């Protein structure tokens, strides 16, 4: 029994604490994307002609992503392998996210790092797919969950790394991962 608790503790711990982010993204033709995903995009982003379809493979599994520009913001809409909507990520400026969430995230980063710099901010919306096809009308709906995906540089105990942190709508840290940089020898020497 005690081993079971130990295992659960390890599993919970590993979901919150740092892991390494490794993703492989490949541009794919619309033809291989599940029909359900195509239909959803056609309905939700009817006037958007420039949609790039990406097949993504990461430690979280395999998925399809539609990337497009809507207004002035970059949208990334993720679907599972069956073409069901997983979430919509919208890239925004740091000062555009909710003030209290921003304050809580800032405090969290200040407590965990000697120095940090925010690099990229995405608002992640997830909820019922039949509700989420009218951006931005759905964002205040109770069934829609809002998280913030923040890419930042953090310095702590001499370690200078880039991380991706996922925070909930009130700015509490859900999980974070280190982004492993690609080799740069060919760019430097």
């Amino acid at each position, binding site marked *: 029994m005690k081993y079971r608790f130990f295992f659960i503790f390890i599993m919970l711990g590993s979901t919150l604490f740092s892991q390494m982010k*490794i993703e492989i993204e490949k541009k794919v033709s619309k033809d291989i994307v599940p029909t359900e995903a195509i239909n959803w995009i056609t309905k939700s982003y009817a006037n958007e002609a420039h949609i790039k379809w990406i097949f993504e493979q990461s430690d979280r599994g395999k998925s399809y992503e539609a990337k497009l520009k809507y207004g002035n913001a970059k949208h990334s809409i993720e679907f599972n392998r069956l073409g069901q909507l997983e979430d919509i990520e919208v890239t925004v400026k740091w000062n555009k996210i909710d003030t209290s969430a921003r304050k809580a995230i800032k405090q969290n980063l200040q407590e965990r790092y000697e120095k940090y710099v925010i690099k990229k901010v995405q608002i992640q919306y997830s909820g019922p797919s039949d509700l989420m096809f009218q951006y931005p009308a759905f964002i205040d709906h109770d069934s829609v969950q809002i998280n913030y995906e923040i890419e930042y540089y953090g310095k702590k105990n001499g370690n200078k790394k880039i991380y991706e942190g996922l925070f909930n709508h009130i700015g509490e840290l859900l999980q974070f991962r280190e982004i*492993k940089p690609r*080799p740069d*020898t*060919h*760019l*430097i*020497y």
Partner: protein
Amino acid sequence: MGILPEVSFSWKASESIGITAKLESTSEVFSKNINKDVIWLPEHKRTDFHIYSSYKLNPYWKTSVGYIYLFNPEDKGVHQVSAQLSYKHEPGNIRLGHRIRSDYIFLKEQLPVYRFRYRISAEIPLNGESLDLGEYYLLLSTEPIFNKGDNMGELDARCLMKIGKIINFQHQVEGGIDYRMGDIFSNSTSFTTWVRFGWFIQI
């Protein structure tokens, strides 16, 4: 015109300090004779051994110092020391690398030659949105080099175009063309093309 194979080993000495050792060999394959005809004349020109130590200021900025031993069958050994500052960033899907470097080249029975150079390199993914493991990229770079030595001051330039592949986090290969112009503002400007092959290993 010739070939320029290179192999580089990099490893971390600590969280912030990295070491890179590189071996580079230059062999001319075609050359121009006195009548300016291109002739097949294979000849080993030089082998360089580079060793650099870098200090990571943050994930974007690095400073490095290096020592290079240039072995030339005619002149024997030439010593060079270098210091550089590099910066990389990713505007959109492209990764850019900037490098400012100064070299001191110690020649036999001559005053040292000082070189100041700036290189900008662009790494462009060829498969999809971002460059991931197992994918190909195009590398373009350009570098003006100012040389100052005993009674000389000249400007050289290098342009590079390579195709590379990130096999995994440990291995990366590249191949392409390195076009070099020597003493641009003189009447005797030289042009050399090297076909480069590179293998970059992270230990």
